[in-house]
């Protein structure tokens, strides 16, 4: 079959498709969207304020019964808002491993974009978004998060773009495409739609949610509670404490996950026994189980936190 025949066959395959007229539906949708945008901007809020409301509702909602949030009211700027942000850190240690991966971290700051452009609390992580590279973002419809970026933005850096997508989707609790547009470049503004990559291809397969970096634990409590998320061979990883010399202190514990076959991370929780652990500063290390022992494939993923036992 020649190219022309293929062209004819494909052309013919849809030749009888006569779509219904949807111009009215499109006009209705765009008018509704315009009205919504006008309301947002009139509320004194750039999208960042709206984002803060959403994040505030999320954080407050964990402990409190649902409350009506005034959508039109101006939002007082809170310099210590909490966000869950993704940062770049060292990848696993196997020969086929990616060099760097993303870790989820809980951070505070005036806005999620400010947090993304700041140094993380854990010195193992860093951001690929320099100061001034992220200008603003807005959620225009359920399918799109629009981000304006400055000239410094690393638009050719796939992991940096995923850092942005994972963070904004988490903050907005959305699976929307992130449309990144360079501001101030006029009609020629380079812009791209960034979809979220497969979790296991960019995220560390081991990520600690708690404790936070530098957390202080009281020995009298008997245990250190650890929570995180991972994807490990046969759904099982491990955590332990190391002292300054890199020696294991106390007993390791199994990080049991609910599964490992789906391409995503599974949460885990465990307690490390502190009874034999003297006061001091330690590194909490959690690892995935590397079935090959480091000889092939991805190798073991790990995440660490500095903890102070008093």
């Amino acid at each position: 079959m020649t190219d022309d025949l293929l062209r004819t066959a494909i052309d013919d395959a849809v030749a009888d498709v006569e779509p219904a007229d949807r111009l009215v539906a499109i006009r209705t949708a765009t008018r509704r969207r315009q009205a919504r945008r006008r309301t947002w901007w009139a509320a004194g809020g750039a999208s960042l304020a709206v984002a803060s409301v959403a994040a505030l509702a999320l954080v407050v909602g964990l402990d409190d019964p649902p409350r009506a949030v005034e959508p039109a009211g101006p939002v007082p700027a809170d310099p210590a808002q909490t966000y869950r942000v993704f940062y770049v850190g060292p990848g696993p240690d196997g020969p086929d491993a990616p060099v760097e991966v993303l870790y989820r971290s809980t951070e505070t700051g005036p806005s999620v974009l400010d947090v993304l452009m700041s140094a993380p609390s854990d010195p193992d992580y860093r951001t690929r978004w320099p100061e001034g590279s992220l200008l603003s973002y807005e959620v225009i419809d359920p399918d799109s998060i629009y981000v304006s970026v400055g000239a410094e933005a690393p638009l050719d850096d796939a992991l940096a773009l995923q850092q942005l997508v994972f963070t904004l989707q988490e903050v907005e609790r959305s699976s929307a495409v992130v449309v990144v547009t360079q501001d101030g470049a006029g009609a020629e503004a380079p812009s791209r739609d960034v979809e979220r990559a497969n979790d296991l291809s960019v995220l560390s397969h081991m990520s600690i949610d708690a404790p936070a970096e530098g957390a202080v634990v009281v020995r009298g409590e008997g245990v250190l509670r650890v929570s995180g998320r991972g994807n490990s061979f046969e759904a099982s990883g491990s955590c332990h404490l190391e002292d300054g010399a890199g020696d294991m202190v106390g007993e390791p514990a199994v990080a049991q996950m609910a599964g490992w076959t789906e391409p995503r991370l599974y949460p885990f929780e465990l307690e490390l026994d502190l009874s034999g652990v003297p006061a001091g500063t330690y590194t909490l290390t959690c690892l995935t189980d590397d079935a090959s022992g480091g000889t092939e494939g991805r190798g073991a993923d790990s995440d660490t936190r500095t903890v102070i036992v008093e």
Partner: protein
Amino acid sequence: MTQDPSVVGRAWGVDDAVEQLYAAHWRRLVRLSVLLVHDQGLAEEVVQDAFVAMHGRWRRLRDPDKALSYLRQCVVNRSRSALRHRAVVERQVAASRPVDPLPGADEAALAHARRTTVLDALAALPTRQREVLALRYYLELSEAQIADALGISRGAVKSHASRGGAALRDLLADENGTP
């Protein structure tokens, strides 16, 4: 194409732009999406959403060519998401909603069977290959335009086109009982 895009004026307002692009490209874009998702109702949804999204970012586009290439990109991306979503739903419902058959005369039935064969063969290809073939043979885009629409390299376009073209030829030859 029902209207030459060059007749579209330069000093558009956003609503005029939507209207003119709709008049010129609505049918063609829906047909493109049918090639990708094999479902007319779904294709109309996809392209409708693409127009709404284009309206949303008009201040970044402000140019008929840019707007059209944005629409194309949107239609391909959203068709892909719609397929993924439908795959999940179908696993639960085990039912699909193909293009409505044309009942009646033998000739119409034959034409319908011929079209279904091509759409089924396209549906059997990997997503990227299907997208490249639809953009190349249906929209007649150049390699560079396809690379741009899909966000992949020209080398990747070439390789998807060649593998997809060969696979589609094989599938259609099998259907027709010819080697």
